[in-house]
């Protein structure tokens, strides 16, 4: 028998947030609040406070006018001001100021002119006509983006100043939601950045920090989220207040799920489902109403030796209402009838059962109460044929759901779906894409296939756009009006962060050329200049995505795979 290959088991801090963090910086941090008042003993030996500060934090010096965070960015870290002041804009700033793409629709003549103005060479760029209100510079091994003329852009009456010692950005980091404001350095500032893993552990071991963040969340986000929940809309402000006081915020799964996604794909499906964190287990006591704030959950039930996917729930959906309503109406004790598992990263609110029974059920119209659950045993007695068909509001069969879940296609709001039974492989879609992108196609007509449906390799403009996390210049961003994820070619520095993050490999790095076809190279290093490219849904064209318009056989459509109505239409 061959002897096993011996490797050092990967450790949590193999890759620190910033390798430049040394003991001197850690000692300095331990002298200031909130770290000075933390009890190092509470952290134990596995995750010591010093280790957290050294490996999950970094210190950044910002210059006057430099953007610290941008509104709309998906961040994965929180910030603490060590010295200096930062300016928070109370208004939404225009996309061009933040370094984002600002697609302008082509007019009739510009559209027509594409027929003869498209480049002969691939990936041709012309950067001579750049006109932006932001400036990029490279220093300290990172790209910096500055707002030019800050007082004009962020006026004193429409801004707030953050002082030394203040925390910010923690909610977006913990709840994986977009940043709600843009923060700019006011003069020179020194800022500590804590990545979400470190923040989570700091909160776990330091009750003061946990309470502080919890309070911020309850103050600014929780009540508005509860008010937006359909089931709770008939409740009074006072009742919402009382529910908010009892609600727990919980997170499941890995924030950086995309990193492990590819490796996890190689595992057996049973193992993959088994590894997914359980939010609610079938057969257990229903301890509350679950509201999904972010991410996707798998609804499953045991079937044979594994778990069968029945449906999935996404942002804004609830779980457990039926069981709770049944128990409240009948006085019986029925447990969860299905399991709820976190797929990737999930962020939920759990309203305890007693709070639902006390404040929700007596105050909602009876029409909102669901039908009683069928008699016990009825569900498990269903035939295997029925199990394959529609169930619990799920419009499509179980196999397709498994396919969409396994490949995380449920994340896509504009997935390119091709019906291969109608597609003649004529490539009109590819040619149309190329013709609207200066002769450079922005997708690949290949991809994962289920039965006759293929999800082609085009950006899906995801619900959870992990590609946007970590972009140093904010070049990749979500358009506030359309929701499309687009890249600003002018501010992209070619770092590949987005391309590496995309779990579907739908972002491609290309080396750019000038109009004569010569490669563009960096003045200092002489290396080719790379840019991230992907489908932008033809946001500068009239009439929507050219690929869809060009398909003569009704085979290609851009569809929202997180929308059950569209799923039913296409796969029902």
């Amino acid at each position, binding site marked *: 028998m061959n002897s096993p290959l011996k490797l050092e088991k990967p450790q949590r801090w193999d890759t620190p947030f910033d390798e430049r963090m040394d003991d001197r910086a850690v000692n300095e941090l331990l002298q200031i609040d909130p770290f000075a008042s933390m009890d190092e003993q509470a952290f134990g030996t596995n995750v010591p406070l010093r280790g957290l500060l050294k490996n999950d934090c970094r210190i950044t010096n910002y210059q006057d006018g430099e953007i610290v965070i941008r509104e709309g960015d998906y961040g994965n870290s929180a910030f603490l001001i060590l010295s200096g002041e930062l300016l928070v804009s109370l208004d939404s700033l225009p996309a061009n100021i933040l370094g984002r793409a600002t697609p302008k629709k082509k007019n009739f003549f510009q559209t*027509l002119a594409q027929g003869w103005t498209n480049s002969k060479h691939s990936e041709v760029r012309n950067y001579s006509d750049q006109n932006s209100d932001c400036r990029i510079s490279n220093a300290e091994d990172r790209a910096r983006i500055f707002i030019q003329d800050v007082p004009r852009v962020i006026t004193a009456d429409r801004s707030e100043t953050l002082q030394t010692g203040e925390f910010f950005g923690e909610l977006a980091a913990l709840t994986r939601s977009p940043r709600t404001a843009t923060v700019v350095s006011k003069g020179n500032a020194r800022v500590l950045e804590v990545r979400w893993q470190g923040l989570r552990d700091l909160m776990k071991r330091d009750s003061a920090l946990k309470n502080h963040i919890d309070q911020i969340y309850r103050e600014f986000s929780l009540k508005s989220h509860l008010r937006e929940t359909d089931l709770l809309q008939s409740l009074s402000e006072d009742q919402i207040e009382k529910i908010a006081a009892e609600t727990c915020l919980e997170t499941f799964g890995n924030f950086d799920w995309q990193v492990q996604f590819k490796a996890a794909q190689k595992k057996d499906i049973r193992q993959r489902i088994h590894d997914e964190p359980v939010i609610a287990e079938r057969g257990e006591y229903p301890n509350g109403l679950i509201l999904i704030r972010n991410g996707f959950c798998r609804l499953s039930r045991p079937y044979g030796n594994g778990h069968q996917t029945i449906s999935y729930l996404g942002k804004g959906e609830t779980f457990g209402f039926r069981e709770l309503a049944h128990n409240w109406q009948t006085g019986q004790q029925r447990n969860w009838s299905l399991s709820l598992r976190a797929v990737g990263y999930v962020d939920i609110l759990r309203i305890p059962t007693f709070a639902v029974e006390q404040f929700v059920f007596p105050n909602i119209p009876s029409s909102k109460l669901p039908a009683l659950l069928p008699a016990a045993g009825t569900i498990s007695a269903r035939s295997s044929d029925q199990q394959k068909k529609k169930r619990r509001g799920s419009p499509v069969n179980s196999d397709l759901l498994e396919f969409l879940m396994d490949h995380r296609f449920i994340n896509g709001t504009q997935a390119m779906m091709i019906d291969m039974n109608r597609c003649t492989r004529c490539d009109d879609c590819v*040619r149309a894409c190329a013709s609207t992108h200066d002769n450079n196609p922005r997708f690949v007509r290949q991809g994962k296939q289920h039965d006759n449906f293929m999800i082609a390799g085009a950006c899906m403009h995801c619900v959870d756009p992990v590609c946007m996390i970590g972009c140093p210049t904010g070049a990749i961003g979500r358009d506030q009006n359309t929701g499309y994820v687009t890249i600003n070619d002018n501010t992209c520095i070619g770092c590949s962060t987005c391309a590496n993050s995309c779990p579907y490999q739908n972002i491609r790095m290309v080396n750019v050329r000038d109009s004569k076809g010569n490669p563009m190279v960096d003045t200092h290093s002489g290396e080719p200049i790379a840019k991230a490219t992907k489908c932008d849904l033809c946001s500068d064209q009239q009439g929507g995505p050219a690929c869809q318009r060009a398909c003569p056989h009704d085979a290609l459509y851009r569809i929202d795979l997180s929308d059950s109505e569209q799923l039913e239409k296409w796969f029902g």
Partner: protein
Amino acid sequence: MTRQRQLKIRLICSLALTSVVTACLVGLILWQRANLQNATYTSGAILLACLFFLAGYSLRKKIPFASFAGPSRFWMQLHIYVGLSTFLIFAVHIGFRIPDGILESTLAILYLIVASSGIYGLYITRTIPKKLTHVNDEVIYEQIPVIRQQLAAQVHALASSAFGKSETIARFYVNRLSPFFEKPRALAYIIRPTTRESRKLQNEINQLDRYLTSDQAGLSEKLISMVQRKDNLDYHQAMQGRLKYWLFIHIGLTYSLLIIGVVHGVMALAFHGGMR
């Protein structure tokens, strides 16, 4: 409403609309004839306009960025139903008789070839995609030669590894595998692809199993899967190629038809009053 249902409703509505419009046009021509007017010019003009419109779809495809031109699927639907209606208009135009002049005969034959190729195209664009979907290996047409070359190299490497140990494999590779992987398929296969040859080869590989040494176990399975992959590639090439070459012929003939059609129209107008 599901997509399938939408498509069925569209089919029924389109057929109904085409029937009504065609009936109106034919009715107009017949009404002119009944009133002793020269209806041939009307039917000819309608027919020529239809042909230009049908050829216009090719131009629409060349400007995919032009959103104002409408989606291609809409054009495709119009192309199909206008094309179908031309059959009846053509029949009325020639007066349900066989043309006798050289130009008219050439034009009629050309029209029939183009129209038939259109019907054939409709048939293959509706049937071949399903056949290709049944084959597991989805492949892009332009990549097929490269993939085939890689596959041939893999088979060569696999067989070479057994050359020193087994003469059986060496002989089988030279005589049977190498021609299958390296030579293009015969015209008969391109016209009507079958799995006969690959099945035969797979059977032979199975037979070969008993002549192999124990350390060559598993070789036959690998070879069989490679033969299957090659067969799938050939099938894709034949069927995708058919779709591409059909379009090439259909469009090429359409332009010839348009030119001769215009000549016919000019001559018909020039000799409007007959020879003087």
